[in-house]
């Protein structure tokens, strides 16, 4: 039996009092941004599907050689050699049909996070004494705190700038190589390629499942918030919103736990006994061997130049 109120139109809904809250809230914006980042950074395999220099390689060779280049970069001391390697990585990206601007933006998003904070103190004569390039200010007198000496004049030094350039260049080249690897390799191939480094199959299986279910759970979170948004006429106080978010986190945790039990049952059902197994589907060819040789020569050449010719 339908109640009377369900047969009539609602009376005019009073507008919410207090501050206006149009558009998405902080939580929803954060969730959308997280989901968008995951979609772009993890799910998108557009670059990996293109024809290019790196895509044509056996994923195992791609993984091993790009890691070898990262090791090589970490052994360099000369800023010229390091930035030369960065330029080489940019050329690799272009040859692999990766949009250059997108690639540079993706890499330089991480640099301030992981290196700028560390490297800024090294610019100053407080940490790296040397030839003054630019004076920042005068303290009136020098100070000593145990083993630390604060000079009278705070300035950026040439030696400090070189340290910063070397450090940032090393991070930029290494992060670029890692990003290039993930952009040009499908996630499933990357996981399979880990076998080269004797990573146990069970870890590879777990990594693959993590990737699979992170996306699914992020979709669940988005669905929860979309469903709530579709029935929300007015937002509650900050405390109410926080309690709601906390309760959904608890719900999602429980859902994840129950899902993990079901997934384990589905694995058992298909004969899983705690041992990961996989097919070796890759075949290395002449192109791969030629690329390996090229990378070895590049590494040796750069290291020789760095240690013998270029200024440190």
């Amino acid at each position, binding site marked *: 039996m339908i109640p009377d109120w369900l047969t009539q139109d609602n009376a005019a809904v009073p507008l919410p009092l207090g501050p206006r809250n149009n558009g998405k809230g902080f939580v929803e914006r954060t969730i959308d941004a997280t989901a968008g980042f995951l979609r772009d950074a993890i*799910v998108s395999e557009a670059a990996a599907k293109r024809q290019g220099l790196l895509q044509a390689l056996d994923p195992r060779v791609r993984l091993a050689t790009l890691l070898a280049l990262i090791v090589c970069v970490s052994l360099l001391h000369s800023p010229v050699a390091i930035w030369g390697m960065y330029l080489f990585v940019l050329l690799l990206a272009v040859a692999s049909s990766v949009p250059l601007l997108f690639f540079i933006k993706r890499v330089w998003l991480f640099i301030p996070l992981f290196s700028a904070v560390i490297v800024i103190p090294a610019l100053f004569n407080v940490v790296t004494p040397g030839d003054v390039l630019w004076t920042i200010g005068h303290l009136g007198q020098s100070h000593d705190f145990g083993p630390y000496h604060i000079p009278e004049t705070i300035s950026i030094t040439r030696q400090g700038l070189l340290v910063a350039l070397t450090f940032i260049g090393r991070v930029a080249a290494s992060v670029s190589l890692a990003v290039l690897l993930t952009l040009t390799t*499908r*996630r*499933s191939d990357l*996981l399979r390629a880990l076998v080269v480094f004797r990573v146990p199959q069970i870890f590879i*299986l777990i990594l*693959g*499942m993590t*990737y*699979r*279910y992170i*996306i*699914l759970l992020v979709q669940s979170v988005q669905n929860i918030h979309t469903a709530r948004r579709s029935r929300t006429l007015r937002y509650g106080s900050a405390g109410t919103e926080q309690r709601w978010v906390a309760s959904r986190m608890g719900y999602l945790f429980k859902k994840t736990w129950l*899902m993990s039990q*079901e*997934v384990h*049952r*589905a*694995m*058992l*059902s*298909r*004969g*899983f*006994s705690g041992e990961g*197994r*996989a*097919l*070796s589907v890759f075949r290395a060819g002449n192109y791969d061997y030629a690329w390996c040789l090229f990378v070895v020569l590049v590494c040796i050449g750069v290291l020789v130049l760095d240690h013998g010719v270029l200024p440190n």
Partner: protein
Amino acid sequence: MKPVYELTDIHYRYHAAIPALEGISLSIFPGESVTFLGANGSGKSTLLHLLDGLIFPDSGTIKAFDEVLTEEKLETDAFRCFFRSRVGYVFQNPDIQLFCPTVFDEVAFGPLQLGLPAGEVTRRVEDTLAMLGITSLKERTPNHLSGGEKKKVAIASVLSLNPQVLLLDEPTNALDPRTRYWFIELVGQLRKAGKTIITTTHELSLAAQISSRVLVLTEEHAIAADGTAQEVIRNHELLHKANILHEHVTDTSGYFGKEHEPHTGDNVIKFPAVPAAEPRPRRS
């Protein structure tokens, strides 16, 4: 003929308190297509979990292939390989079942677990994908599949094991009409190939179309009827009591009409018998 499954007075409760199955006794024979019909919460999925040896009864006995099914027995390599290669379970939620990075890996998972040689695994995967018409999805990740595609891949991941018994939990839930019909045709082909099909559903039309035998589970978690699809689905009083049929529905004969009869094809792939798996040494 010996039954594939023989259940005697099975009782199962969740958290030792919430009843899920009460006094279930039945036998299922090779080649039968048995459907458990019941309302939501009647214990259908729990019964399939029991039949697949994923959970075990509080009391009563389950015999599978003439062996008593126990947790201890399934921990032995020899029996686990024997049982898992003969019984395949398609879960209700394909997202639970599709846990590998690609469709190829998913379909290869079972045969690899059986310890089949690489060439045979590849052949099975490719044959199964071709049979279900999903070869084009081979390199796709399950995150990028539609609901119908996920269901097809979930079925492929089980068929590649070449099981003698297929357990299908609410297989047509959330399927569009075209995929639903495709599924009914597939079951027809698998029946023709001699597979034993055990399905749970609350859809009368599906039960009518795919079953040689229908059992009704009541909301009290017991079996209320066991008969042919015609006998059970035409018994409106029984279906009303089991809360499967709405009181206003008085005619179910349409479910048996010609337009509902599935076509059966002959393009069923035949896998060679699974070689007897050699028990691997236990890791210390």
